[in-house]
């Protein structure tokens, strides 16, 4: 079967590839483009490890076909650090020991980023709701929630 072209903006850079029809965005990102920050966990939409931001909305890259993303703007966790300086969420995850095995971390950070983009000062309940589609088997979630709240405080202090 003929390959299909896909073209989108990934973390601020134009990307173009040819993929087999039906290729998921997760597969295209990891195995074609080389961005391995989204993880393939369940491939069923249950774990959230593959979460990315497409045109400002949190989506699951394992259930999104790459060819439906033509022209889209996609953000993954690998695009957050700027000039070697970690994003406040990444720094907060490290400081709060919110990462253990690390498999869920990129998805968690994407879910948290969308939350903070829309709600800079979230309540604890807001954070829990925002992360409710992401499963972590290591931390018991509490350090992750604290990390997101810490990053939110850091953001608002910087803005003040």
């Amino acid at each position, binding site marked *: *079967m003929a390959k299909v072209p896909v073209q989108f903006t990934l973390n601020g850079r134009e990307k173009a590839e040819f993929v087999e029809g039906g290729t998921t965005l997760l597969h295209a990102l990891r195995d074609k483009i080389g961005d391995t920050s989204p993880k393939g966990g369940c*491939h069923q939409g249950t774990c959230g490890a593959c979460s990315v931001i497409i045109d400002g909305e949190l989506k699951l890259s394992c*259930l999104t076909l790459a060819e*439906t993303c033509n022209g889209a703007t996609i953000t993954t966790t690998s695009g957050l650090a700027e000039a070697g300086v970690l994003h406040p969420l990444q720094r907060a995850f490290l400081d709060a020991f919110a990462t253990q095995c690390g498999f869920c971390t990129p998805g968690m950070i994407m879910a948290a980023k969308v939350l903070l983009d829309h709600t800079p000062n979230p309540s604890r309940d807001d954070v*829990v709701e925002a992360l409710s*589609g992401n499963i972590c088997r290591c931390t018991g979630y509490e350090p992750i929630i604290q990390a997101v709240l810490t990053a939110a405080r850091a953001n608002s202090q910087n803005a003040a």
Partner: protein
Amino acid sequence: MALALQTFPTVRDANAALKASGTRYLGGGTLVVRATNEGDVSVTSLVRSTDPSLSAIEIAGGKARIGASVTMAAIARHPQLGAIAKAARAVGGPAIRNMATVGGNLFAPAPYGDFAVTLLALDATVSTDDGELPIGDFLAKRDDNHAIVNSVSFALPKAESFRFLKVSRVKPKGVSVLSIAAALEQAGDGAISSARIALGCMADRPMRARAAEKALIGKRLDRDGIAAALASAGEGTSPITDPIASAWYRAEVLPVHLGRLLLT
């Protein structure tokens, strides 16, 4: 195996392409891409439509028409759909709600499809190019359906006359043990004048609790008034067994949760 995806500007063209064997409609991807990820080789090609009518929400004269491609997130944040926002928010986590569509929810097998439970309680009408069907009839025949759903429409309930409950073991979000939607009208003296109660996970697809509905007519929403409805809530049900709960468990807890919903 490679899948061919065809995109059409109109529903009519997409419907024509959908007739080919092995072809499924691609909405938000939460059902069909999941199936192909799991190795469902019966799907060989996918069809979708970018028809703008599929993404429209129209509200006029107390009625809502929701295009089949409208997502759960779009319903949950719509200012005029506040009465049913809770049911849309009950579906999945934020990423799933940004993807899962109204049309797809009509086809989601138990334990999924919580929003379709709401639509059944609201007596929605499902529209395809083949015509319109009451949602109960549509759900009963959905396995044989070969036409793309264009929209669902229903009379907007008053916030106080619509109740929804999803029971999950994982907080704040998890797969349904069961879900219940109830559209109840009360007369001036508080007696129930009409009741439509829909259940999720109590069969392979959303179903009405007709015996409980009947038992509520003329009764008040107090412990004595709802007793007969709770006693008959399980009539006609055939709950699923899955890793979330057994059929026995679902049958046992249905009256408990229906009681809580009716008394809140």
